[in-house]
C-alpha cells in the first residue's frame, strides 16, 4: 500500500557544467522524463482511484464508472465508520502501539547492532548467529502463544510491542551502517575521555540520523499495518488496533455470515466503498509521515547497502 518507489523520481538535478549537452543527452532526458512521468502516474493512479472510490456512491463503483473523480459524491461510509466510538478507541490504540513499539524497537535494534559492529567483540559471531537463526526458524504459532500467555502479557500492550521488537533484517542493515563509520573517530573520542555509552550517544548516534530515520520509518510502517499479533494475543475489543477493527468490518460486510439476513440499507452501502474508505483511513496518516523522513530515507537505505 505504501510505496517507496518514489526514490526513482529523483533525476539528477544539475547538468554538468562545461560543454553544452549533446543532442543525444537531451533526447535521453526527454525520454527519461516521459518514462518517469509514466511511472509516477502508474504508482499514483491506484491511490487516487481509491480515494475517489471512497467518496463515491456504491452504484457508480459497481457500474465501473469511478476513475479519478468521485461520482455521486457522498461521505456516508466515512460517517458510518467514524461514528463508532470503538473505531476511535482502536485508532488511538494503533497510534499508541506504533509509537511505543517503534521506540522500543529502535532502542533495542540500535544497541544490538552497535555491539555487533565491533569486530573485536568476543562471541560476536555467535550473537549474529542467534539473530540470523530466527530469520529461518521460529517456535511456531502455538508455542509462541503459550509463551506470551504464560508471561502474563496477554491482553496488554506488551503482547503487541515486544514480540517483534527486533527485526533481523533491519538489525543487519544497521550493523552494516555502523561498521562503515570510521573507527578512528571513536578512538579519538575514547582518547578524549568518553566511555562506550558516551561514544554511542554523542558521536555515533548524531552521525547515524539517516539510518535511524530509515529504521523509524520501517518499523513504524510495519507496526502501523500489523494486525496479526494483536489479533492473536488480545481478546478485548477495546484493546485492539484499528487494523483489526477495519478488517472485521469488511468481513462483516462481505462475509457469508450475513446469509439470509437482510440488512438495513445504511449498512449495505458499505461493501464497495468500505474497502476504499478503510485503505484511505489507514494509509493517510502514515503517508503524511513520509515527506518529513524522505530526505534521510534515500541516503539511509543506500548507506547500508554497499557494505552489506
Amino acid at each position: 500500500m505504501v510505496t517507496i518507489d518514489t526514490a526513482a523520481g529523483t533525476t539528477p538535478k544539475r547538468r554538468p557544467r562545461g560543454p553544452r549537452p549533446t543532442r543525444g543527452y537531451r533526447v535521453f532526458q526527454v525520454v527519461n522524463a516521459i518514462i518517469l512521468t509514466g511511472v509516477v502516474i502508474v504508482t499514483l493512479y491506484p491511490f487516487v482511484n481509491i480515494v475517489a472510490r471512497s467518496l463515491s456512491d456504491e452504484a457508480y463503483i459497481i457500474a465501473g464508472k469511478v476513475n479519478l473523480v468521485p461520482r455521486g459524491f457522498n461521505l456516508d461510509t466515512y460517517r458510518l465508520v467514524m461514528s463508532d466510538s470503538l473505531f476511535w478507541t482502536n485508532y488511538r490504540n494503533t497510534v499508541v502501539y506504533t509509537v511505543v513499539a517503534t521506540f522500543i524497537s529502535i532502542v533495542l535494534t540500535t544497541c544490538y547492532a552497535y555491539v555487533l559492529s565491533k569486530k573485536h567483540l568476543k562471541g560476536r559471531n555467535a550473537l549474529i548467529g542467534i539473530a540470523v537463526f530466527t530469520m529461518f526458524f521460529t517456535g511456531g504459532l502455538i508455542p509462541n502463544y503459550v509463551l506470551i500467555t504464560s508471561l502474563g502479557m496477554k491482553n496488554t500492550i506488551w503482547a503487541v510491542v515486544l514480540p517483534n521488537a527486533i527485526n533481523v533484517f533491519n538489525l543487519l542493515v544497521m550493523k552494516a551502517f555502523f561498521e562503515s563509520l570510521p573507527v578512528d573517530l571513536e578512538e579519538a573520542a575514547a582518547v578524549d575521555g568518553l566511555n562506550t555509552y558516551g561514544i554511542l550517544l554523542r558521536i555515533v548516534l548524531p552521525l547515524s540520523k539517516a539510518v535511524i530515520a530509515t529504521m523509524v520509518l520501517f518499523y513504524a510502517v510495519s507496526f502501523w499495518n500489523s494486525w496479526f499479533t494483536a489479533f492473536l494475543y488480545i481478546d478485548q475489543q477495546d484493546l485492539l488496533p484499528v487494523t483489526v477493527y477495519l478488517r472485521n468490518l469488511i468481513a462483516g460486510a462481505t462475509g457469508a455470515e450475513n446469509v439470509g439476513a437482510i440488512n438495513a440499507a445504511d449498512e449495505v452501502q458499505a461493501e464497495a466503498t468500505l474497502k476504499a474508505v478503510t485503505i484511505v483511513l489507514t494509509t493517510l496518516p502514515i503517508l503524511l509521515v513520509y515527506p518529513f523522513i524522505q530526505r534521510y530515507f534515500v541516503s539511509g537505505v543506500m548507506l547500508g547497502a554497499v557494505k552489506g
Partner: protein
Amino acid sequence: MFDRSRRRAAVIAAGLLTVSLAACGSGDESTESDLSEHRVGAMAEYKVGDQFRATEPLTFSMLYNNHPNYPLKNDWLFWTELTKRTNVTIEPVAVPLSDYEQKRSLLIGAGDAPLIIPKTYPGQEDTFVSSGAILPVSDYLDLMPHFKDKIEKWNLHPEINQRRQADGKFYLLPGLHEKPWQDYSLAIRTDILEELNLEIPKTWDELYTVLKAMKAKYPDTYPFSDRFSQPNPGGNLLNILAASYGLEGAGWNFQHVSWDANAKKLFYTGASEQYRQMLTYLNKLVKEGLLDPESFTRTDDQARQKLANGKSFVISSNAQTLVNDYRPDLAKTNPKAKIVKIPLPIGPAGEINPASRLENGIMISKKARDSKYFVAMMQFIDWLWYSDAGQEFAKWGVEGTTFVRDANGKPTLAPDVDVVGLNPKGTKHLQKDFGFYNGVFAYGGKPELVQAFFSPEEQEFQKVMNARPPRPVMPPFPFTDEEREQISLWATPLRDFVYQATLQFILGQRDLSQWDAYVAELKGKNMDAYMDLVQKAYERYQKNNG
C-alpha cells in the same frame, strides 16, 4: 491475503497435530456414568419444557464471534436478562468474526480454549477430534432433554449420525432446523419474461427455453451471466445444479462422494453419469451463447455490472443479494426492471430441497468435564440453544420490551425496535442495542422462528421450498485418523483435477466425447483407492452401529 492466512492455518494445523500426539497417551478415563461430583448448581429435575435455573450463580467462559454490525456490548439486555432467568453469567472471549476460525484453532491447540465454543460448522470439528481437547457430547445427551426431544420430533437421526466419528460418537452440538433452509437459487428479470410472454421457469429444461427466447430477442446479450465464481468457478451454479441432478454437491460445496439412495451405493461425484449430464447441459448453454463463458472466471462485481446494464437477465442469487445488490443496481439504471428469486429449478432428481437441516453449533472443551458445574453447564446450553423458550428469547428478546404478542400469541417487534429494516422508524436496534438475534445464540428452530424476520416474498419462496421433501441423507463413513490423513492426500489433486476438467468440458475446450478418457485420468489420481477407503469406512460404521 488468502494465501497467507491459509499458510497460517496450515501452521496451526501442524501445531495441533503435535498437541494431539502429546495428548494421545492420556487415554479415556472419565466416562459418562459418574457425574455425581459434577452436579453443583444443576437442577435435580430438568425435562422438556422446564425453565433452566442454576441453583447458585455460575459463570461459564465462551468464545464469542464478534460481528461488526453489532459489536459486543457488556450492558446488553441479553446478558442481564439471561442472568436473571438462568442465574448464569457468560464470560465472552471476543474474537473478530474476520478470523474467528483461526483463533479458535489456536486456542484449542494451545489448551487455552473457553468452555463453550460456538459458531462451529458441521465438519469443522473433525480436525479437533484427534487432539482430545473436545468433549464427545454424544455421551452426555441425557443431560440435554430439549436437544434429544428435537432430534426425536423432527427425525434428525440421519443428519446427526453423519456427524459421528470413527468411534461412533459425535463432538458437535449442531444447530437444528425443523425444515431445510435453502437460500441460494437463481434470480431472473420478470419484466423480460412478461415482454416475451413467458412463465417463470420451473425446471432446468424450461430455463433453457427461456434463455433461448431471451437470446432470440436480444441477440447481443448473454442472457445468463453468473457470479459467485470465487474461490471456485461456478460456485453456486454448479452446486445447485448438482443437487438437482441428485449429486451431493459441486462448485463451492464440492463433495467427492455422493449417495444413490435407491441402489444404496456411494459413488464418486465427479465421475458419475449425472455429473456428465450436468456438464452436457452447461456446455449446451455455453455453445448456444446463452451462458456467458466469463461467468466462471470473473469477480462478482463484473457480473453485477452486466446485470445492472441490461447485458444479462439471469444470475445466481440469495435473499440478501437480491435485495441489497440487484434491485438497487437496477433501480439506478432501469427503473422498469423487475427481478425475483425463483424457486430452485427442478432437475432429473425431481423435487427436492437440498439444504441441510444442521447448522453451525457448539463444541465443548474437554476440560469442562472436570468441572463440578459440568451438569449445570450442559443443562444451560440445552435451555438457551435448544428449548423453544430459549430460542425465542435469543431471537425476539423480552416480551413487552423488544417484542409484543398479538391475540394468537404470534410475536411482532415492539414499535420502537428495529431490525433488518422492518421498523425503519424504530429508535433502538434489536441487535445493536439489545444483543438479541445474535448469530452466536439465535439460529435454527421451527420455520416460523427461522423465517421470522424474512420479507414476505422470501417467506413465499421458503414455503415453496419447504413443500419439497428434503433430499436423502448420505450415510456416515467416519474415517480413522490414519485414514483421514491418507484421504486428504488424495483429495486435493482429485478435486483440482475435477474442477479443471469441469471448466474445460463446460467451455468446450475439451469435447464431452472424451469423458471416458477423463474418468481414466481420475483413476490415475487414485479415485478408486479413495472410494475403496470410503466404502471400507462405510461398511465398518454399518457393522458397528448399523
